């Protein structure tokens, strides 16, 4: 299952965002941010203690089952008293959850996390981005490995000169996407696909901002 992968914002940034907010309510999310240990029950508890140490009054907290879900309003209603006492909402979900909550409450929202990418858990505590939703899928020519996402530069004609020992120039722990693609295509006897010159990409393949209206 794909997840929204998040990382906690630096304390200094959070402190700045909360500068003029004395009473806060904290939301966590029982789905993606629980999986990534960024917005589950434990992290919400830790946030509560951190904010208290900074002299904030925490009016309450809850871990919504799915912050981005349509049923979130039920959860909001259940805590309406404590929410109303707060001047700002500290939200430990992905940006989708933050926007969902913001659209339903007339309150200042403060994301406690940065949303990094849509990815999957590929090992315990390891999350990998597999798709950037570019709208121009090339997987059919790359053995099912996405260079738009997995190559740091998004190159579609093969590796750059920075690859070293099969790793990416920006991080020795990251595989070079084009080494992976080469190996995969070699395995399945389809190297000719890699030899085909790919014209420049359509960088407008994704309707930005994304919006699709099905006809009929």
């Amino acid at each position, binding site marked *: 299952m794909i997840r929204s992968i998040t990382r906690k914002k630096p304390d200094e940034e959070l402190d700045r965002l909360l500068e003029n907010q004395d009473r806060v309510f904290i939301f966590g999310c029982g789905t993606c941010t629980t999986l990534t240990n960024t917005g589950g029950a434990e992290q919400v508890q830790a946030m509560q203690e951190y904010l208290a140490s900074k002299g904030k009054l925490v009016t309450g907290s809850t871990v919504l089952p799915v912050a981005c879900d349509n049923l979130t309003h039920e959860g909001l209603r259940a805590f309406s008293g404590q929410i109303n006492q707060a001047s700002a909402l500290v939200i430990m979900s992905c940006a989708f959850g933050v926007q969902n909550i913001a659209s339903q409450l007339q309150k200042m929202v403060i994301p406690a996390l940065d949303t990094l990418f849509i990815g999957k858990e590929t090992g315990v505590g390891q999350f990998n981005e597999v798709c950037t939703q570019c709208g121009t899928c090339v997987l059919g020519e790359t053995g099912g490995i996405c260079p738009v996402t997995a190559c740091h530069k998004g*190159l579609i004609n093969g590796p750059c*000169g*920075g690859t*070293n020992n099969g790793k990416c120039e920006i991080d020795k722990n990251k595989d070079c996407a084009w080494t992976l693609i080469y190996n995969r295509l070699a395995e399945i006897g389809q190297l000719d696909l890699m030899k085909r010159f*790919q014209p420049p990409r359509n960088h407008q393949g994704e309707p930005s901002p994304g919006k699709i209206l099905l006809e009929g």
Partner: protein
Amino acid sequence: MASKFKQALDQGKFVVTSEVAPPKGVNLEKMAHHIELLKDKVDAMNVTDHQSSVMRFPSLGAALMVKEMGGEPILQMTCRDRNRLALQADLLFAHQRGINNVLCLTGDSVVLGDHKTAKGVFDLDSSQLVAAVRKLEKGKDMAGNELDGAVSFCAGAIVTPEANPIQPQLIKFEKKIEAGAEFIQTQAVYDLENFKNFMEYARQFPVKVLAGIILLTSAPMARFMNKNVAGVTVPQEFIDEMASAPKGGAIKKGIEIAGRQIKQIVEENICDGVHIMAIGKEELVPDIMAAGGLL
């Protein structure tokens, strides 16, 4: 008319290129000094484009200066900082001002440079940039629109013969040639036996190859490159040789090694020329050339 550099390539001359590094700032004195020193000694000077993703005086401006001072510039263009509109516009300008050689590069990641939070563009890759040059030469832009006045360039690209694994690099190399690259400059090659194998393969393509020679300045510098520079492997024997140099004599030793390599390349007719990278010590290029029997 073909560029002087292209004429040299086409005549089968053993071609020598070096580098000019634009400064970080507007003081062009040192660069002017290097241009003056080298312009009549080498066949062309590559002007680096925000080398290592460090913001500097633009390669286009520096290439223009080489031209104005009577040298032969090779404009390096990376795909890192400009989208296809800006790249094409720069090519139009370069041509119009008499800069007729271009080296098409993907470019290092911005993450490695001094503006780490910048947006890396990579709208095109190096092979697509070569193809774009060829299209502009036919009087059309990349979108297929007619140009009022076309360009003409001697276009090149790079290859890393010591990359690991090499096969994906070779596929990209072939694509660059297919896209229209006329010359190839290589990343530094120290292991000439390995390079000979590469050249045996490269000779089947209609492209001139210039071997990259990076001056070794000390044993620690050689070890640093092995550890940190992708696709560069300095053999242990060279590191030992550098370490054996008497105190203060390391650079002399480095020049000697580079000279020896150039001599072997010339004597064994391994490739079509050399691209000498003295990385900040451009004033030593004539010494390297002399050591290699080129002056």
